[in-house]
């Protein structure tokens, strides 16, 4: 006799069922993705929990105490708030503004420019083309990742950015995700960046809260980098410190001779789960995933990566740095899978963490699954305190302790920024790291 194992919904799960029931047929109707089916998939497995290996250190099921209602579409007030902020920001190239999860053409700039075409997710889902809709669907992954099913069920908006084959777009394309932050809400977005054969582009994804109301976000970003194309992707967040809970998924597919650099800067004391799925589909491609997480208080940041080599002669690199203060927790899980026949794969991953307090914790879990014999794969992980000899040397020269720590930590972080985006982008990243370190000194 087989016993049916029934799962008892948590408060947050029950709330999500209720919220989906209330929302369906409303603002989300008309799109070609089957939200009901997506939600049914989610409802079957529920929120991921620690008995699922990939979520072992980040038990979303117990972390998520409550589920917030989706943020409402922008109103006159929230648009005005966004405009005030945008007026302070300089814009050069394409800037897509997504406010509270909703694509805002009127707030965006240069959506069409030579070599770049940008549309709203909802428009694409409604009108195609079907190839793009298929790439947006990420159905294979969704079957394993209930947060992606949840994303499909609730997605409010997003951008579909297409860089034409052969186009060289030098000015970074900006994806600006603003939340009005006036009251608690959940933001769900899905976006796609396609870089056509031989094209090159830089995408900067910025998340900024304009108010400090708590938020829950579920973002999915799909990156398709075609043969001989190059994409640098940088994501960072700034703005009001709020009680935030973020799940961000990046799904990247690389063609032959393609090149991807993807960098994430995480700061603060919220909860962040970043998961990356990088697949090499063509030979001689390079993928470089990097990140710096600067966490304090009871912040929790989890980076979980699955890199799959399906083609020969590809190179994957992962370099993640954590600086953990107070009672913060960092998680790095990196899995490299080398499929049968993916010979001459060169894969390396490295995770380094520095503790600034006894209460901080780091979990490192590198994994290799290799089914080909002619490959070079390696991984390393370190976690520890700052070097006392170095600190003493700096202090003996008159540099106060926190400043000495900041000097060493900036140097520690800098390695992960090397070669990312443009000079200006690296400067912004370096400055952001510096700002976080300086606020520790006050």
């Amino acid at each position, binding site marked *: 006799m087989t016993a049916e194992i029934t799962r008892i919904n948590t408060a947050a799960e029950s709330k999500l069922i209720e919220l989906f029931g209330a929302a369906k047929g409303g603002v989300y109707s008309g799109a070609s993705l089957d939200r009901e089916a997506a939600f049914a998939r989610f409802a079957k497995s529920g929120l991921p929990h620690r008995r699922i290996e990939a979520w072992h250190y980040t038990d979303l099921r117990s972390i998520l105490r409550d589920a917030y209602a989706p943020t409402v579409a922008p109103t006159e007030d929230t648009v005005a708030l966004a405009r005030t902020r945008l007026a302070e920001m300089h814009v050069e190239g394409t800037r897509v503004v997504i406010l509270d999860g909703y694509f805002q053409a009127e707030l965006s700039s240069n959506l069409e420019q030579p070599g770049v075409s940008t549309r709203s997710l909802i428009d694409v889902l409604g009108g195609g083309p079907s190839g793009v809709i298929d790439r947006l669907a990420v159905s294979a992954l969704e079957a394993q990742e209930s947060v992606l099913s949840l994303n499909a069920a609730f997605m409010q908006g997003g951008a579909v950015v297409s860089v034409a084959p052969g186009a060289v777009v030098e000015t970074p394309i900006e994806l600006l995700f603003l939340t009005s932050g006036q009251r608690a809400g959940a933001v769900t977005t899905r976006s796609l960046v396609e870089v056509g054969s031989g094209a090159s582009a830089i995408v900067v994804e910025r998340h900024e809260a304009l108010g400090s109301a708590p938020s829950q976000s579920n973002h999915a970003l799909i990156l398709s980098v075609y043969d001989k194309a190059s994409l640098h992707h940088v994501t960072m967040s700034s703005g009001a410190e709020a009680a935030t809970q973020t799940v961000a998924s990046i799904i990247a597919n690389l063609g032959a001779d393609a090149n991807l650099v993807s960098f994430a800067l995480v700061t603060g004391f919220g909860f962040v789960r970043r998961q990356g799925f990088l697949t090499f589909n063509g030979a001689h491609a390079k993928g470089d995933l990097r990140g710096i997480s600067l966490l304090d208080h009871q912040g929790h940041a989890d980076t979980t990566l699955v890199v799959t080599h399906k083609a020969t002669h590809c190179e994957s690199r992962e370099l993640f740095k954590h600086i953990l203060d107070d009672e913060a927790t960092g998680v790095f899980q990196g899995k490299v899978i080398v499929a049968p026949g993916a010979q001459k794969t060169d894969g390396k991953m490295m995770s380094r963490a520095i503790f600034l307090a006894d209460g901080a914790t780091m979990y490192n879990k590198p994994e290799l699954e290799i089914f080909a014999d002619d490959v070079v794969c390696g991984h390393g992980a370190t976690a520890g305190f700052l070097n*006392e*000899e*170095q600190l*003493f*040397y*700096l*202090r*003996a*020269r*008159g*540099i*106060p*302790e926190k*400043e*000495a720590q900041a*000097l*060493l930590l*900036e*140097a*520690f972080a*800098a*390695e992960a920024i090397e070669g990312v985006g443009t000079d200006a982008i690296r400067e912004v990243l370096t400055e952001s790291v510096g700002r976080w370190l300086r606020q520790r000194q006050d």
Partner: protein
Amino acid sequence: MLEIKNLHVEVEGKKILNGLNLTVNPGEVAAIMGPNGSGKSTLSYVIAGKDDYDVTDGEILIDGENILDKDPEERAAAGIFLAFQYPVEIPGVATMTFLKASLNAQRRARGESDMSTPDFMRVVREAAAKLEVDPDMLKRPLNVGFSGGEKKRMEILQMALLSPRYGILDETDSGLDIDALRIVAGGVNALRAENRGFLVITHYQRLLDYIKPDVVHIMSRGQIVKTGSADLALELEKNGYRDYVADAA
């Protein structure tokens, strides 16, 4: 005046300094000589404020004020400078960045404003030229990949920039060839001044041919066992530490 009174220091329960007494007057160059393991580096670290050591008794005074409760950075701002026996490598921190951070930190601690970048560049370049330090070295990470001699010259360059009241040189001569020794000694001599004292720790008479001490102390087993004039160093060079080590036993 730098005064060390009845200093007792332990590491992990092991006694290293046993009631050491020593005075360095402004304008004076005092040499400390002593066999390996007698506690010379320990003394220099304890003066600079390294916290691996337990000071179980005694005082370290600058102009009558005990500095033992001060952090290393406070002692630096009060005018203590230690030229390390083994300068520490700091990957990722450009030498220039470090020099500027330390100079300005000390200025701020004294209530002065930061030095402007052009002024800073000028003083660094001048100091580097005097010590025959290649300006390109200043762009490299601090001490990383520097030769032994380059590291020591960099220590003296820092001392020149920071103009301390008391410079403690821990075996600055070790690992230097004769040319480097001359440059380093020249750098120290250039800093000799009425209001600045030096504690020059060395194994060998050789350095003292270039930096003429006013007084020589012999250290053994954590104590000063003999104090004399510069001639004492010459005598040691001939007879070794035998007599003094035996005395202390």
